[in-house]
C-alpha cells in the first residue's frame, strides 16, 4: 500500500428507478497504485465508473478526489481536476485524425480564446505548436508512431484502444480510469498492454483504476482488487486474498458450482 487516498467514495449510490445499480459503496484508491475493479456482468462496475467521472450524478453519497468533493460536478470538471478515462466501447472521435483526437484531450490544459485564435497571436501560435509536439510525443509513447494523420475510424482495433489511452493521457490525469482496456485483444496484445499500464505508473507516476475481466491482467498488475456484485462491494484486498475469497468465487461461479 502506498500513499494517502487519491480518490475516495463515501456510500456512493446509484438508483435507476427501482433498480439499485450501485449500493452504498465505500471505496478508496491510494496514490500511485494500480487498483482493479472486478465483478460479474451487470455488477454495476461501469455505472460506478460513470459516477467517478461525472457522467452520472450519484443518487446519494460523495466522490472525493484529491481532498476535493466533486459530487454533482459536470464531467469536464472531473477531467480538469485530473481524472482521465477510456470507454468500454471505444468512443474515439471517429472522423478526426489521431493527432486531433489527442489535441481534444488537451482541451483543459490549453489556453486561448476565440479572438486570439482568429488573429493567431504569437502566444496562440506558440501554444498550438507546443501542443502539437506534445501530442506527437504522446502518440509515440502510446505505440502509435507515424499514425498522427490517420483518421480514427481507419485505425486497427488495437490502435484505437491505444489512441483512447493516449487521448486520456493528454488530459494530464493524476488518476487514469480504464474500462475493460483489453477487451478484444489477443494474448500477446494483452501482455503488451499490461506492461504498458505498469510503465504508466513507474514512468509517469500515474494512479490507475482498471475495470477488467481478464484475470491474468488483474492478478498480474494490481496492487489491490475490489469486487462488486449486484452493486455491492463484496470483497476488497490484495490479489492473492481475493483469489481465495469464498464470496468472490461464489459470485463468479454460483453457489451450486462450489457445492459440487
Amino acid at each position, binding site marked *: 500500500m502506498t500513499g494517502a487516498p487519491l480518490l475516495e467514495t463515501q456510500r456512493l449510490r446509484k438508483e*435507476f*428507478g427501482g*433498480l439499485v*445499480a450501485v449500493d452504498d459503496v465505500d471505496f478508496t484508491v491510494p496514490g500511485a497504485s494500480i487498483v482493479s475493479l472486478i*465483478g460479474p*456482468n*451487470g*455488477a*454495476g*462496475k*461501469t*455505472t*460506478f465508473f*460513470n459516477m467517478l*467521472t*461525472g*457522467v*452520472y*450524478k450519484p443518487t446519494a453519497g460523495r466522490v472525493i478526489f484529491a481532498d476535493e468533493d466533486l459530487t454533482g460536478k*459536470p*464531467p*469536464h470538471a472531473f*477531467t*480538469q481536476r485530473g481524472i482521465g*478515462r477510456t*470507454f*468500454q*466501447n471505444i*468512443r*474515439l*472521435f*471517429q*472522423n*478526426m485524425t489521431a493527432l*486531433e483526437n489527442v*489535441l*481534444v*484531450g488537451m*482541451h*483543459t490544459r*490549453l489556453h*486561448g*480564446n*476565440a479572438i486570439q*485564435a*482568429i488573429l*493567431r497571436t504569437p502566444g*496562440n501560435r506558440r501554444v*498550438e505548436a507546443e501542443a502539437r509536439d506534445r501530442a506527437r510525443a504522446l502518440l509515440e509513447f502510446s505505440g502509435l508512431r507515424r499514425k498522427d494523420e490517420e*483518421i480514427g*475510424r481507419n485505425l486497427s482495433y488495437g490502435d484505437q484502444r491505444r489512441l483512447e489511452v493516449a*487521448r*486520456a493521457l*493528454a*488530459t494530464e490525469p493524476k488518476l487514469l480510469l480504464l474500462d475493460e482496456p483489453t477487451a478484444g485483444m489477443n494474448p500477446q496484445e494483452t501482455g503488451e498492454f499490461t506492461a504498458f499500464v505498469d510503465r504508466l505508473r513507474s514512468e509517469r507516476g500515474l494512479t490507475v483504476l482498471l475495470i477488467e475481466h481478464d484475470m491474468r491482467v488483474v492478478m498480474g498488475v494490481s496492487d489491490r482488487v475490489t469486487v462488486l456484485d449486484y452493486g455491492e462491494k463484496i470483497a476488497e484486498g490484495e490479489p492473492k486474498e481475493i483469489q481465495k475469497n469464498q464470496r468472490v468465487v461464489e459470485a463468479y461461479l454460483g453457489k451450486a458450482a462450489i457445492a459440487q
Partner: protein
Amino acid sequence: MRRTIAAKVSAVWWAALSRLGLSRQRWRSLPRTTRRSVKAVIWVSIFLVLVDLFGVWKSSTIAIAAIILFLVIPPWQKLKVGGRSVGKWVVPVAAVALVAAYPYYVDSMPQVPVFGPAPMLSTMVAMMIFSIMALGLNFVVGYAGLLDLGYVAFYAMGAYMAGWFASDQFSHQHLDIGAVGLQPGWIGFHFSIWLVLLMAGIATAIVGILIGLPTLRLRGDYLAIVTLGFGEILPQIARNGDNFFGTGFNLTNGPEGITPIDGPGFGHTLHRILHLPVSYLGLTNYDAVFLWTSLLLVLITVWSSARLRDSRLGRAWIAIREDEIAAAAMGVPLMRTKTWAYATGAFFGGVAGAFYASYKSGAFPDDFFFQISVFILCMVILGGMGNIWGVIFGACFLTYLDREGLSNVGAWMNGHLGTHVNVPLYEFGIYGVILVVVMLFRPEGLIPSSRRAAEFHEGVRDEPLYDVAHGAEIYDTVEGAYDSAEGA
C-alpha cells in the same frame, strides 16, 4: 437503386470507350493532372458549344473558357515561391480577383443557355451577404452539429441594430458618431456604419448567448424546435414593437419597419488621405462599391471560420459533433463550447443583417420570415456542411436562383415550351426538390468537407442531431440503467 443506375451508365460508357481503345484501366493509369486536364477541356468544350448554339455568344466566352482552363490545368498545388508552398492560394485568390473585377466585365458577359444573362451587381451583393450569413450558420450546424431553425432571428437583430443606431428612429435622441451623408434636421442616433456593424455583431452575439443558455441544454429535435420558436419570437417583436406594452414607446416602428437607414462611407478625412468615398449614397458606382465592401466582409468571415476551425475551440466543436459524451469526458465544457458556437454564428448573422439593412436602407419585419431560416440552412446543406467553399457556393447559388435564376429559367421555359408557368412562385417547392435530389445522390453536399463525406458514406455511430440513445444515458433514465447494467 441509384447505385445500379449509376453503375449501368458507367458500364455502358466504359464499354464504348474501350471500343475506341481507351479502357478504364488505361485511363486510371494516366497521371492525375492529365486526367483532370482532359476532363476540364471536355467540359469547357461542351460549355462553349452550348453557349454558341443556345445562348448569346460574346467574345468574352473565350476568355471565361481560358480562365477556367488556366486555373484547372496547371498543377498549382506544387507551385512554390521562395521555398514556401503557395499552391493552395492560387484558386481562392483568383476567385476573389474575379469577383472584385466583376463590375468591370459584367456587361460583356455572354448569355448562358437556360439561365440567361449573368447576375446583376445587386444580386452579387446579396450573394455576398447571404454567404456571410450561411458561414455564420455553418459554425452552429456544420462545426458544432447543432440544428438551428431560427437563424433569421439573428439576421433581424442585426438589421434592427442598424435601424436603431443609423436612422431617425429615436426622435428624442440627437447623437452623431462619425455618420456620413446626414440630412439637415436629422434626429435620433446616427453612428458610423462601420461602428454599427461591430455593435450589431456584438449585440446579436449577446442575444445568441441569451437564447443559447436555456436552449442548448436540449438535444437534437428538441433544440431544433426551441430555436424555431425563437426564430418566430424575434420577428414578431419587430412586427409589433411600435407600442411597447402600451407605453407608447416605439422600438421597431411596427409593420412599416425602419427606413431610411444611413449608408456606409468613410467621411472627409479618409477621403482626403486615401480617396475612399465620403458616402456610398449618391455614388455612380453604388452597387460596385457595395460589392467590394461585402466581398471584404466575406473574406473576414472566411478568415475567421478557417482559423477558428483549426483552433482549440474549433476542435472542441467538432468533437462535440462527433461524440458529445466522449468530448465531455475529455474535458470539453459542453454548455460553454456550444454557446460559443451559437454566439459566433450569431455575430456574423448580425453583421450581415446590419450591412444588408444599410444596403437596402431599411429594416422591414416582412423580410424576417421562417423561410429565411430554412433558406440559409438549405445553403449550408446544399453546399456541404462544415466546408467553407461549399457553404459559399450554396449561398451564392441559392441567392442567385432566388433573385434571378428562377425567373430566367421560367422565361426560357415559357418561351421555348409555350407554357405559362410563373416559376418563381414555386420557389420553395423547387428548393425542396433540389434538396431531396442532393440528399439522395450526394448527402454530404456538393462540396463537402472530407470529414463529413466520410460520415455520410459509412454511417455515423453517433448522429449528433438526433442523438436519443446517448441523451438517455446522460439524463439517467431507466433504459440507461439497463444498458449500463448489461455492459458492466
